């Protein structure tokens, strides 16, 4: 590693970040999405998963053309939403997680590189208890969301 906010050579132009805790019911939507996308081996696409977003994820965005954040959505209409996201400052009281918008804002602080086009794929979840499995409804929502996302990432498929 080098402490430099420069893009690594040979970087995939598209980054998909799945956010969530695989052991908390429908919060597993993000990591499960990454697991299923990995099996497809999409060209030009790098996959990343984490419990939650933090400032260092801004460095993963450098040199990308597009980034997609996949996360469980606890309050949306469902089955999923796909919306562009723009930078916005973090304004919370503790350090525990950032929004995609705040990660984009952090990106602008650490890099002079062009901001990638960014989208949030918010998949509706319902049950987030520790130790719970993915609910059937959330699983169906994830299927629908991935169908859309894969056709977008790999139009010829």
């Amino acid at each position, binding site marked *: 590693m080098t402490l430099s906010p420069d893009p690594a050579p040979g970087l995939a132009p598209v980054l998909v970040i799945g956010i*969530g805790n695989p052991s908390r019911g429908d919060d597993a939507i993000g990591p499960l999405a990454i697991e299923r996308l990995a099996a497809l081996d999409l060209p030009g696409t790098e996959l990343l998963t*984490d419990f939650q977003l933090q400032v260092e994820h801004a460095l993963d965005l450098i040199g990308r053309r597009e980034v997609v954040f996949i996360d469980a959505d606890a309050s949306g209409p469902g089955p999923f939403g796909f919306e562009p996201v723009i930078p916005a400052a973090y304004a*919370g009281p503790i*350090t525990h997680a950032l929004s995609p918008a705040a990660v984009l804002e952090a990106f602008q602080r650490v890099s002079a590189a062009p901001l990638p086009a960014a989208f949030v794929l918010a998949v509706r979840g319902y049950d987030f208890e520790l130790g719970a499995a993915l609910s059937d409804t959330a699983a169906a929502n994830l299927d629908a969301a991935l169908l859309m996302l894969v056709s977008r990432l790999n139009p010829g498929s």
Partner: protein
Amino acid sequence: MSSELETAANPASLKRVVIEPLSRVEGHGKISILLDDDDHVRQVRLHIVEFRGFEKFIQGRPYWEIPVMVQRLCGICPVSHHLAAAKALDQVVGADQLTPTADKVRRLMHYGQILQSHALHFFHLSSPDLLFGFDSDVARRNIVGVAAEYPDIAKQGVLLRRFGQEVIRVTAGKRIHGTGAIPGGVNKAVTPAERDELLKDIYQVIGWCRAAVQLAKRLHLSNIGLYNSFGAFRSNLMSLVAPDGGMDLFHGNLRARDSNGGIIFDKIDYSRYWDHITEEVRPWSYMKFPYIRSLGADAGWYKVGPLARVQNCDHISTPFAEAERREFVDFGSGQPVHATLAYHWARMIELLFSAESIKELLHDADISGDDLVVSGERRERGVGVIEAPRGTLIHHYRVNEDDQAVRANLIVSTTHNNQAMNEAIRHVAKRYLDGRHLTEGLLNHIEVAIRAFDPCLSCATHALGKMPFHVELIDAEGECIDTLVKSSLER
């Protein structure tokens, strides 16, 4: 030492202000403030929902899975849980003395975690308050404002965080969900190539950490009146210390000091922690209140975390951090520093200690050794204690003869600091909110006190739409008469 503001005499007749700093799927934390008709503060309480469902989560699992599983309890310090669990299970497998390689690789992982957590806290979360003032323009009082006026600080925070993550990746095997620590040792050493890659950056990291201590110290000393008094309260202090009394955030014995710095207990083997600390349940809080058994609940509560650790130890083994510790102790003029805002200064001393410790470990050939695991006489119970970024973390397991975990008890840093955080916000509320019309700037003073401790709210899940910051002023009839809202995890 408990505050008179814990319980009001006539709560039903008072106006209620509720600050919900964060809500998560499992539960949430909030602050409630009761005011009388003249806006005088009568009651202040911090409510945090404790870990729930953990015992059920691990029951029946093979014990060797636990160090990996517990990382899913907390998304912000999974490495601390990973290591505390591994230490507890060392006792179960009879590994009373780890190999040098296992001990040092784990330490490297731990100091990577401390470094990245402390950097995030100071550079990203607290610096806007500290650099601009607690009731400065809210539009400026954020990390964007810091980046505009102090661009190097904002950038260094991100890069320090990334460096800590790299140390974790190298030692735990993966950036998240690492498996490096196993009962009895580790499953991988650091390769020379990995070591060399980290060595390229470590001197820059130490330089930035030294500058961070200077910044935190300068902020404190430039406004001593405010920094010494804001949310300040006297309490006992508790942490692990090394057998020689030095700072050791990875392993050691329990030591507690009273508010004057006198020793309450020392050289305590943490595997019987319950002989020395116990927990009280209070009807208004989901989170228990630990205290030192010999002093009782009223006098026995304590602070943990950087402010306790820097003052509880006798020395620090790394030179730059030791020089800073001495200056910090001298600042107290023979008495412990109890200022809540001094947590930041102490935290940066630990940041520097972590960076220096990483450097020393990277120069130690043992981290690349091949003797990774030991075992001994199998036991049914294990206790692991570690100094996590926010303070002492205890993991306690019982494993049956079929190798299944049957019981678990965790006391996390935030639980240890429960009474301390309540005290801090009561002092702040009484000093700054009493008799005044509440504004965002005034309420931010409460947040500033909370931020100094940075409580862990078990936020291992955080789905979109689940983390509003919400303040409501409710009158005695339950009607909402004023609201302040800001979102920390909007889309």
